[in-house]
């Protein structure tokens, strides 16, 4: 399993990271999508500590009235943190699009919704003069459980090196309400969807395998010998391999002596 974290130390590092990145851009405002779930609650709490609650805007972006409880949780938590929040219903544009281009695929509809939310966040980013905080965790990034150019799109990601089980620990340390911490994690793309249903295993199991693979640099055989079920190991390894493209910039065909993405190499944080 991923190591148990010291919540206070991780909070300190991540709050400093958020502050550093924002101050380098000369930007004091942050915004993020608030789903009513655990990851966005943790991210909002970190952002509120780093930037001050009044400088954080949570956007609640429901599809109609599909998930009333999550909307209530998101709004209540924003109120508790003292951050601003706004609600934008994405149903009109989603329904308009799919009435012209129907599909039976829930995944396709879900990806479209995730990208609609991204587009609203980026529009608000300009309206607010703020930067978008991403909420993808290490587990999701590794198995590719996210929509590329959707929920994976952001300006900075404070949580991308914490496994889901570690996000839970951090959430408990940060005092995220039990109502949010205890409910089944879901991408909220269709009723009844849960992360663990989609992935096929519990997060504890997935994180144990990922940690043995990434932290432990274990081979398939070593991970199985450590006590993980072979079917689960194979499925997780497949997901990691298949989702590699989501974790990197698209390759640029190299033609010249010095090319973007290959050997024209500058730091992200250059002198800002």
């Amino acid at each position, binding site marked *: 399993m991923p*190591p148990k974290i010291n919540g206070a*130390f991780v909070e300190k590092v991540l709050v400093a990271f958020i502050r550093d990145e924002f101050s380098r851009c000369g930007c004091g405002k942050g915004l993020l999508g608030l789903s009513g779930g655990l990851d966005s609650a943790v991210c909002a709490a970190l952002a509120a500590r780093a930037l001050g609650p009044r400088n954080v805007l949570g956007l609640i972006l429901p599809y109609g009235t599909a998930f009333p409880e999550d909307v209530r949780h998101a709004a209540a938590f924003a109120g508790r943190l003292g951050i601003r929040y706004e609600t934008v219903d994405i149903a009109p544009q989603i329904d308009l699009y799919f009435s012209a281009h129907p599909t039976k695929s829930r995944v396709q509809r879900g990806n479209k919704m995730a990208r609609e939310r991204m587009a609203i966040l980026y529009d608000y980013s300009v309206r607010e003069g703020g930067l978008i905080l991403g909420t993808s965790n290490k587990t999701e990034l590794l198995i590719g459980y996210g929509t590329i150019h959707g929920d994976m799109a952001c300006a900075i990601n404070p949580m991308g090196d914490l496994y889901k089980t570690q996000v839970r620990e951090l959430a408990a340390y940060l005092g995220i309400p039990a109502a949010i911490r205890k409910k089944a994690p879901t991408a909220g793309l269709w009723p009844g969807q849960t992360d663990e249903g989609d992935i096929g295993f519990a997060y504890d199991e997935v994180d144990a395998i990922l940690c043995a693979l990434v932290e432990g640099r274990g081979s398939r055989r070593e991970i199985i010998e450590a006590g993980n079920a072979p079917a689960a190991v194979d499925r997780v390894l497949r997901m990691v391999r298949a989702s590699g493209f989501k974790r990197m910039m698209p390759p640029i065909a190299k033609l010249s002596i010095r090319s973007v993405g290959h050997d024209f190499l500058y*730091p992200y944080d250059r002198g800002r």
Partner: protein
Amino acid sequence: MKIALAQIVPKLGDVDANVDMHLDILEKARKEKADLVVFPELGLTGYTLKDLAEEVALDPASDPRFRRIVARSKGLSVVVGFVEEGPADRGLFYNAAAFIADGKIIHVHRKVFLPTGGIFEEAKFFAQGQDFRTFRAPFGRTGLLICRDFLQYGSSYVHYASGADVIICISAAPGRGIAGGDAFETSRMWELMGEAVSYFSTVFVIYANRAGSEDGVTFAGGSFVFAPGGRLITRASSVDPDLVFCRADLSAVREARRKWLFKRDEKPEVIWRSLERIVRASED
């Protein structure tokens, strides 16, 4: 002697801003009557330079910005990290450390071990230093190391064998590992080496790391000073910027060497002959 460890957050790629930051700290250190101020690796430039390395490179002997620091070292010793491009090696960029004392550059060390692998890519952008030399500092014979140099333990041995009483390591060490402590796990690695080198070489080990983050990587802070015999004198905060002062009594080197006879019994000529045989065999 009073030592200041300047655990700063340099501005990436902005030499002018970093020179000002160094000068501010030198003034603070002067007010505190420090004798030695140690800044971190690449403190004048920031660490994650990549192709910026050539844009921020300078010749310490002639660069007016660097001369401002040298000019403000009257009555002080200062260790500064920067990218060096000397007149004799144009087009080569070294990750370098200068020891400055009382208005003069006494010594420049070019980093020998350039970590390249995992998150590190120094050898892609820097030329490699070729030598470890000690020099006479106002407080005693001293050797400089830069970050990874210190983790390759032969480097400290060379300084020890050439008579160092003080080994100064400047660093931009990222923090890695969050298994429960109130510092990054890798901070232990640096202290372990500091403790061991100060113990078995009966020297002072002064380690100045940086703070802040660049491109998502947080530097671990945790600068420290060990006195001979593995005695921790001071430790700066982990992760946060800091400026800590401590006193070091150089007579502790003599005391330690009377008590522990490692130095008296050292046989560099045997080590050298053995190493020579090994290196020659590997060349055949």
